[in-house]
């Protein structure tokens, strides 16, 4: 232990030198990391940013020696003088937990549901010998687990140490994962997308916690993320990766202020920035109110039946809104706010249980599939995950043509022609109709998904988080396309997202959902610029902006709001 502390004072905590990682796959070798060198000093937060496929997660896994068998790596990853790539398995076990620990993306799967959190934290402590090579007693391990929980700000750690993971909320679970990482006081924590699975308000808390760890205990953090806002909020230094190579490395402030490489500039430009490029810019009153109302909800309530003996769960609670022809309505909310439930109810995928929901004049409260079916051709739906929303056995052309085939029975030549037109209008070559879904990239698939939703020229389009599975640069392109097509086709759209900035770019009118209630609605600029409801204020304050200086100012200004 003493040796570690000495070393911490002098050299870098982590030194990666010319790292290469290659995977053997069915399609041949994949060079996931081509040539990466970086250093992390004591008490420094280094962010590795990049889009999917850039090799950032593989780099992080190499630091802990967690690569699968099909991978081979070369180069050096030095942690306190030990090369992780070449050390023996038993030495590697000693390094893990003591010198370096990992925080995973999804806290609910990183914790074992059948053990108490205290046991799981103590597991790491007991795996490493105590002071003079002795085993740590159960009692002492528990005491240290309580200490770790207190460090990460879990209230009443003495009691909560015996709780099971399901008794914690998502944010608290991530705190527990961080506590387990901290239990042995490692000099370095590798956090792989630590806030991606969390809501923005919770994300702000976890970022604050990580910042405190660095300030109080001098822990170094390697932060893997794709979110530029998170980088701006936390990182001291940023490493930008692209297709397995380091593109640029610079202190955070320098990188955001004057990015040198073209790729970094493109990446930063693609990040949606709250308050810029708003769709409701310059509007003073709600648009399209003279047109026909397509969707009208009055006191809409949707309940999911509870289990025997427990009350039913109200996912949507007395929500009222209207959506007129040609209008884009943005619905924002965190997970569990009921936004997706509303979208699905409009498309007839969920049943409503109370109030009134009229879609194109049809009362959804007594939905009968047979009578609703003719209306379905007026409604398009874009799903969140473009990979899962296409039948893997059919070609893109067959998938896109499906609505046409069901509703109008065209000849194959007609269908083909129409599919070609639609693919062109979402900026895909018509020849892509012969490809299979897995042969397209995520962004291309989502465009094809848009083409499928639009093939019957619907009056209403429901888009449920259409860009949240995409990389930022792809997201920017898809959003731009969506905006253009909406103007060209003139359909009304219900745009559902958890991301305020994204909603603001597209929507004329924005509604904020919180725990099933519509707490605020108004013009995009009004809701974002001058939020009335406390929750909306908190939501906007939690959203990190991709600019370190501005984010630091916002953090200070909103400290009281976030604490409350």
């Amino acid at each position, binding site marked *: 232990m003493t040796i570690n502390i000495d070393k911490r004072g002098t050299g870098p905590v982590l030194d990666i030198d010319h790292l*290469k990682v*290659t995977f053997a796959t069915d399609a041949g070798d994949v060079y996931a990391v081509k040539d990466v060198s970086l250093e992390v000093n004591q008490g420094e937060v280094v962010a590795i940013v990049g889009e999917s496929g850039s*090799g950032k997660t593989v780099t992080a896994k190499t630091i802990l020696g967690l690569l699968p068998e099909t991978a081979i790596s*070369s*180069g050096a990853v030095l942690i306190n003088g030990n090369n992780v790539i070449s050390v023996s398995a038993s030495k590697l076990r000693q390094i893990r937990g003591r010198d370096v620990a990992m925080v995973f993306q999804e806290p609910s799967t990183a914790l074992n549901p059948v053990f108490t959190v205290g046991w799981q934290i103590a597991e790491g402590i007991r795996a490493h010998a105590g002071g003079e090579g002795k085993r740590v007693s159960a009692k002492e391990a528990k005491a240290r687990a309580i200490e770790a929980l207190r460090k990460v700000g879990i209230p009443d750690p003495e009691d909560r140490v015996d709780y099971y993971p399901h008794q914690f909320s998502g944010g608290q679970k991530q705190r527990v994962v961080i506590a387990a990482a901290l239990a042995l006081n490692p000099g370095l924590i590798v956090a792989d997308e630590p806030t991606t699975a969390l809501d923005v308000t919770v994300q702000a808390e976890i970022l604050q916690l990580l910042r405190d760890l660095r300030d109080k205990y001098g822990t170094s953090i390697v932060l893997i993320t794709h979110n530029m806002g998170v980088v701006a909020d936390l990182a001291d230094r940023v490493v930008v990766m692209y297709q397995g190579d380091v593109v640029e490395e610079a202190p955070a402030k320098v990188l955001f202020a004057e990015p040198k490489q073209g790729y970094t500039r493109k990446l930063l430009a693609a990040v949606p920035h709250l308050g810029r490029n708003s769709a409701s810019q310059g509007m003073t009153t709600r648009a399209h109110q003279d047109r026909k109302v397509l969707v009208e909800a009055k006191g809409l309530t949707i309940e999911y039946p509870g289990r025997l003996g427990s009350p039913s769960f109200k996912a949507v609670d007395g929500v009222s809104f209207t959506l007129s022809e040609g209008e884009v309505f943005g619905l924002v909310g965190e997970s569990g706010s009921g936004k997706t439930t509303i979208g699905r109810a409009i498309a*007839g995928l969920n049943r409503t249980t109370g109030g009134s929901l009229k879609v194109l004049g049809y009362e959804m409260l007594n939905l009968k599939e047979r009578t609703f079916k003719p209306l379905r051709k007026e409604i398009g739906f874009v799903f969140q*995950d473009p990979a899962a929303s296409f*039948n893997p056995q059919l070609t893109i052309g067959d998938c896109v043509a499906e609505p046409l085939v*069901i509703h109008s029975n065209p000849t194959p030549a007609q269908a083909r022609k129409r599919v070609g037109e639609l693919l062109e209008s979402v900026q895909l070559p018509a020849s892509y109709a012969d490809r299979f879904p897995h042969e397209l990239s995520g962004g291309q698939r989502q465009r094809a998904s848009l083409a499928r939703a639009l093939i019957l020229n619907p009056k209403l389009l429901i888009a449920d988080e259409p860009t949240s599975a995409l990389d930022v640069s792809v997201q920017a392109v898809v959003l731009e396309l969506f905006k253009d097509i909406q103007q060209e086709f003139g359909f009304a759209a219900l745009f559902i997202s958890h991301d305020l900035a994204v909603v603001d770019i597209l929507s004329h009118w924005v509604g904020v959902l919180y725990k099933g209630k519509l707490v605020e609605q108004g013009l995009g600029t009004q809701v974002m610029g001058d939020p009335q409801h406390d929750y909306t204020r908190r939501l906007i304050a939690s959203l990190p902006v991709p600019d370190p200086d501005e984010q630091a100012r916002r953090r200070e200004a909103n400290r009281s709001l976030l604490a409350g």
Partner: protein
Amino acid sequence: MTTPTTVEPTADPRASLIRRLPVISHFNKSVGLQRGMLVAGLILTGAFLLTAIFAPLLAPYGYSQLSDADGNFPAQQAPGGKHLLGTTVGGYDVLSRVIWGSQTAIMVIVVAVLMSIFIGVILGLVSGYIGGWLDRILVVIADAIYAFPSLLVAIVMAIVISGGQSSLLGGIMAAAISITVVFIPQYFRVIRAETIRLKAEPFVESAKVVGASNIRIMSRHIYKNATRTLPLIFTLNASEAILTLAGLGFLGFGIEPSSAAEWGFDLKQALADTTSGIWWTGVFPGLATVLTVVGLTLMGESINDLNDPRLRGRKKAASGKGGPASTAGTQAALQAEVRGS
């Protein structure tokens, strides 16, 4: 994982048809021990199939032949001479009975497995997709059949169908139907579980939103995706079908020796011979059963492993040129490390 190859298609749909066929695509994917297992399984199964197809050419005598131009066959003659594998107590030629037996076995497998796949898939699709009381009743029936020992069910079915007596067709049908009854619940459960999983997939929901009818969703979207595992169950069940058929024959519910050759029946006849040191009447039909079952099981198991990207062995990635790992020593170590060898 951020490697670009997370989407794992089972086979490139545009590769040539031959390379996409189940067994051939698996062979191309395999390395090391897994390839060895697959090849051993393929050879045994291939030998079994060829024997069955060319039985009339291969077998020196008919399955119920007791004499030729030289007169009656001697009983219990040791292997050698005119009768390569000897003769049974009844005077049948063992080699001919073993070869003709493969034909009976394959007919039973084909009929049994095809019937159970056909019925099991339809019931599974409908039950899983529609759900409700229909699903509950079908699941209870399937569970009830599961609860019986499969051989017992097969015996009962054999008695019901043929009254214990049998011609060639009657015997094969009786054996096949009794095996079918045992197997339907397996296919039913697999397809039902897949259907329930697929029902919640976005692509099925997107078909629903578009207004596709239930029959269209079942036939176009779920059917193809749910039946991917069938070739695997097929090979595993084929070996089980052979064992059930042999079991039926051994217990006396099989096919009479005058109407077809059947390994289980021959084993039963050979039971009394063992004490008098006559080994050839029992060993050869037994060996034929064992080799066929081993072949089919090896093939099924290795296809199972190859279908799962996590179990499939791969050649190690070759390291980039000029890197520290490209020295001769590392290369040798890599070759030694090729998994499964």
